[in-house]
């Protein structure tokens, strides 16, 4: 893969990664959010695969495909099943309105860029220059966790954070060891399965998955 092509595809993948992350905050339709998450999974897989092709590292390329499969196909499939099992299709009124959320995202992006400057300066390659994007998506994922009410949105927020951490790992290094990545991916899968079970139970017990209803069990 030639250098200009590498840079362009990498930037494209990172752009898609960021855009899908931000759009999660924009949409309130849960099905659309799952679609956006699947697209982000594709972007993440592509990002890793492009790096693998550039380094001519077969293992990294295969890993990119695997990560893409997990995050673009398997996890969205699980979430869609949870949705089909009776979840209301729309996000309840979030704690922060959509317009305000998008403004907050802009601020978070600026913070991420400002904070990661020292990191980028360490080794200014095209890949490390994309680290602020990963950091932005991490903060956006955290923001989703804080402001969205439905259990499924919480899952998506959590997975956005995890995507961002994976992206940062692959952007700053030439790939984490396969064992570590496998372990992380399995963890994520397990977390999603657990949350799915939890969502079902919550619906059975309370008739809804609005987390703000659950305040009784505090200390």
């Amino acid at each position: 893969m030639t250098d200009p092509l590498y840079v362009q595809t990498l930037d494209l993948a990172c752009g898609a990664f960021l855009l899908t992350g931000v759009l999660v905050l924009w949409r309130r339709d849960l099905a659309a959010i799952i679609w956006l998450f699947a697209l982000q999974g594709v972007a993440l897989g592509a990002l890793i695969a492009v790096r693998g092709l550039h380094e001519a590292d077969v293992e990294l390329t295969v890993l990119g495909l695997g990560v893409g499969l997990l995050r673009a196909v398997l996890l969205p499939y699980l979430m869609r099943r949870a949705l089909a099992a009776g979840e209301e299709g729309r996000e309840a009124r979030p704690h922060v309105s959509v317009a305000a959320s998008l403004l907050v995202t802009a601020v978070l992006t600026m913070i991420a860029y400002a904070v990661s400057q020292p990191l980028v300066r360490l080794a200014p390659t095209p890949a490390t220059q994309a680290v602020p994007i990963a950091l932005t998506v991490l903060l956006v994922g955290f923001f989703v966790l804080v402001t969205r009410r439905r259990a499924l949105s919480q899952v998506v927020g959590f997975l956005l954070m995890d995507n961002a951490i994976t992206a940062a790992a692959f952007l700053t290094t030439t790939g984490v060891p396969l064992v570590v990545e496998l372990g992380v991916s399995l963890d994520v899968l397990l977390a999603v399965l657990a949350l799915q079970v939890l969502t079902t139970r919550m619906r059975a017990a309370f008739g809804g998955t609005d987390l703000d209803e659950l305040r009784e069990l505090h200390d």
Partner: protein
Amino acid sequence: MTLYAWALGLCLAAALVALLPTRAPAVLRPTGAPAAGGAVAERVRAATPTVGAITVVGGAVTAAAGALAAVAGVRAMLGHGWSAWLPDLLPLGGVRLALDPLGGLFTAVTGGVTVCAAIHGIGSGPARATRVVVPLFVAALLLVPAADGVGAFLFGWELMAMTSLLLVLAEHRERPSVRKAALWYAVMTHLGLVTILCGLCYLAAGAVGDGFDQLRVAELSPAARNVIFLTTLAGFAAKAGIVPLHVWLPRAYPAAPGHVSPLMSGAMVNMGVYGVVRVGLDLLRGGPVWWWWIVLALGALSALYGVLHAAMATDLKRLLGYSSTENMGLVLIGVGAAGFFAADGAGPLAALALTAALLHVVNHAAFKTLLFQAAGSVQRATGTRDLDALGGLRTRMPYTTALFAIGALCASALPPGNGFVSEWLLLQSLIHALPASGVAGAVTMPLAVGAIALTAGLAVATFVKAFGVGFLARPRGPGAERAAESPRTAIYGMALAAAACLFLALNPTLVLPALTEAVTEVIPAGRPVTGEVTLRLTTITGSISPILIALALAGAMVAVPALVGAVATRRVRRAARLWDCGAGPVSARMEYTATSFAEPLQRVFVDALQPESAIDVTAVKESAYLVRRVRFRARVPDRVERRLYEPVLAAAVRLGTGARRLADGSVHRYLSYGFYALTGVLIVLAVIS
């Protein structure tokens, strides 16, 4: 070194023995035909040892470990020290062990206490957890004085703290108060560990390595040395039960099982003194005079405060616990005086003061081991530690009573007890300080002498009370009425400790040469004390002969009654009822109790103690002049605890309840705390960079 290694190995072996599976004692076996299951099961049962056998073997092995450790310690004091470096045992720096005369002294004391406590423990049938943890506790106690590096020292110290905490907690099922005591102990001992950790790590950071040899040659600024000394002093003082860090001590001792309190009081609190001497006088090679003023002042304060509360206490073990605070205070007076004289250039006096302090450590270990064992026996026999409910044990527990009397005599620092010798040496060093040490010494030392004199006087009252009220007269409670003599092993353990007390009391001259080696290691100023039968001070005029005093006293005790018998007119003896002022027969309720015995003292020291008392008068409904019931309650609260600890605890509780409002149960709120904190930190980072 082999002896020491064997001692540690035997401790581990004893812990392993206690872990073996056991079967019920043979008494409980059904006497009829063997149950279905037959011969194989019976053979397995026969191969499994009984609880009693395990206890005996474990106790014997622990006692053997203690004996070996005592021999190893004495050998080290006589100049057969050793050092070892085990680089692979702990990560980062390995384990450095060495036994020099100073460490040997404390190892020997620990070993001796262990022998007595282990023998005592055989008969008391301790719980399984106690059987396992006691040998480990002993191993930790042996490890601390033998540590020759910061890593090994802190490891031993933490092991000692953890195992002793487990032992304090051992009887939490039987008595709920144990949990609270253990909580106090856990907090105090671990705060102490933290300060010691900080101080020693700061010291090691200024040196090239963590070995004590490297620390001794470390170049440190005076400010750093001050910080190190003060932080470690706080930790060691907490372990030694020095006021104001003594609050755990009167709680933890009553909570611990009968044969564990001697180990804690006779061996563990000594480690606080060891730490002060090791760090202050050895590693930091003395320091400015004001360090030692602090030590001396803390010691004097503890001695007075401890003995006052001991004199007021009605719980036998609580009394002994406060008495430990008192004795450690006396030891710290000696250590402080030694540091003071050394900083002043008066080497021989410093050596004398330190000798007195270390001798008092040995003496205190001996008589406190004896007294705590006796207290444990009393508690087991009567089910109570309340002196007000005891009494009349002389006929029911004659051996325990006699042995407690020896311990009480030694603890009250009267001749011919062993406490007298060390306190006499201490007073000598302080009295002779006047010409040597300028204005500061001229003011401090007489005050210290006064404190010791007052302490000694109150200690006599305390132990007269403990012995007279607790053991003599008639029983005042149902527990004391039913009491029976303790098991034979318990008496052996006490007798051994009593023999050690008498040996130390009559022949301190045999112990002192070995002790001098430990002193000259930190203060090289020749031998402060010589003599074989008569103890002679080398640098100042003064001599004492404990054995002659004892003989004279014994002679007087024989001669005076004989004289009285010979001189007094021989009247015919008549048996008659005791005159009781016409108020009916004298009952046990009319005896002196611990509270009433201490009452005059309480009045004298009312400003210092601030006792609380309340009288509730319940009148008959029809008339206020007809009283149905009068209830009197009196309590002597620990003032330090009230003024210093309760406000802190109340503030912590307030903070906790206030912080509860932060947690209202909303998941989003909890998440947003994390989010705001993260973005806040990121913004700060961005602004800084």
